[in-house]
């Protein structure tokens, strides 16, 4: 067994990196894969809160780097999904406490024992970004359908490629279908037209995400939540299954195209 290292990143902050990491980790674990989520947002840890594992932290990633504990000791096992593990970030230190080579070394150590290693990257494009990306085999780029977030995402694609990593795959988070329908929000196709990278999935805006995050139970555990379904679809796509993309309500095919064309008034 040799894990695939997937780094979840974004340009702009607050677009839902941590939510995506927690939910994809949970979805993959529920599908029977052995998964470890690493919080690389040193100093601003929150993946543990979203996963509801905050109260069980003893050691964190900085302890591992500084050699104050073994790598295994910093892993927290999730009770709901016994295949899911978390390596929390430190609360007290800053980004420089973990160097890119430290992250590579930790991942190399964990690789033989897991199927997937998900790294929740820090926002921005500074040192923490490079640390989170250093071991990545696959980069997931999270953006919201907003011009500012898309612009920052575009910059991140350039930086990721400049680091010699494969072109990131896109997750569009918090798509408000009713606003798209009224033409008040960028549609997925608008985002894709600007970024021109592969789309891995679209997550609709869903109030249950907020409730679930506050409770520390990832929304994939909610059977009927639209966002939860979208996360499960992305997880299956990551595992190599051919799952149709969840797009806007207009859908794909000739009718969807015609409807979009009519809505945009021809010339756009």
């Amino acid at each position, binding site marked *: 067994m040799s894990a695939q290292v997937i780094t979840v990143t974004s340009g702009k902050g607050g677009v839902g990196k941590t939510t995506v990491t927690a939910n994809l980790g949970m979805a993959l674990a529920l599908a029977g894969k052995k998964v470890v989520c690493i919080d690389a947002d040193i100093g601003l840890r929150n993946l543990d809160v979203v996963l509801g594992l905050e109260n069980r932290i003893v050691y964190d990633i900085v302890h591992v780097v500084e050699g104050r504990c073994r790598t295994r000791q910093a892993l927290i096992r999730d009770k709901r999904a016994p295949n899911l593990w978390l390596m929390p970030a430190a609360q007290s230190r800053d980004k420089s406490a973990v160097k890119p080579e430290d992250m590579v070394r930790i991942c190399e150590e964990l690789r033989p024992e897991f199927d997937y290693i998900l790294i929740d990257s820090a926002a921005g494009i500074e040192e923490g970004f490079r640390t989170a990306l250093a071991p990545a085999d696959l980069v997931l780029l999270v953006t919201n359908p907003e011009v500012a977030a898309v612009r920052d995402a*575009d*910059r991140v694609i*350039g930086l990721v490629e400049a680091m010699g990593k494969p072109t990131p795959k896109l997750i569009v988070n918090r798509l408000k279908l009713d606003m798209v329908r009224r033409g008040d929000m960028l549609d997925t196709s608008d985002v894709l037209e600007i970024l021109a990278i592969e789309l891995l999935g679209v997550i609709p805006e869903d109030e249950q995400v907020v409730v679930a995050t506050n409770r520390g139970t990832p929304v994939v555990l909610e059977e009927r939540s639209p966002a939860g379904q979208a996360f499960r679809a992305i997880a299956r796509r990551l595992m190599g299954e051919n799952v149709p993309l969840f797009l806007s309500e207009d859908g794909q095919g000739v009718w969807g195209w015609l409807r979009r064309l009519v809505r945009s008034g*021809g*010339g756009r």
Partner: protein
Amino acid sequence: MIKRRAEIATSEPDAPLLGWEGMPREAVAIKGVGDALWFSFGPEPWPEALRALEARLAANPGFFTGGRAVLALGDRIVEEADLLALLALLNRFGLTLTGVLTDHPVTQALVRRLGLPLQSPPAAERAAESPELPLEPAWLVRRTLRAGHYLQVEGHLCVIGDIHPGAEVAATGDIIVWGRLLGTAHAGCGGDEAAAVYALELRPVQLRIGRYIARSPEEGRHSIPERAMVQNGQIIVEPWRTLSRLERWLGPLLGWP
């Protein structure tokens, strides 16, 4: 700096200027072809040829500085040490080697092994026969430029790919985008107002030519190739190809210029 045939003739009126086919009277004949100087080597022994060449170069040392040199070695076998000595000599007089012509397979192999630009005789002969064509230096970028990318070049710039919003390109000459230009482009950034910007889809955030600045004229999709240039003191955008009658009729309806 480009040396022309005429310059050689006027600067050295007594020098033999024999054609490629003609037998050179000297050990090495020098001839201007296109923007390069051809050094044709006859059958003389190498040390003699080299001495003769050195004498020719040393007679007018400043003239050759910055020139491009093409070596025409004919069918002789050249040893590696001899060729390296010749390269050093060219280098000393500021000549850049841009091509080597040789008919002999052994010499061809040596030229390839040294990584020197080998020209095939037919191509070179055709170049010698063709009327002189004006060449201008240009840079080719074969990728998409994303937000945060900035590129400035001396000369013309050609991008095969898109230029995204937030990316910026600048060139002292023209800018040609074989893709969508959605970012910022500055042609003639050294002050050349005759420079132009070409794109398959010209929808920039901002366009500059020389000292003129224009924002993208209007919203809307431009699905025809367009070019922008300065006319009567402002930046004008026009179709880059002849429009069909249907397109001319439909254009205004779809918001084309």
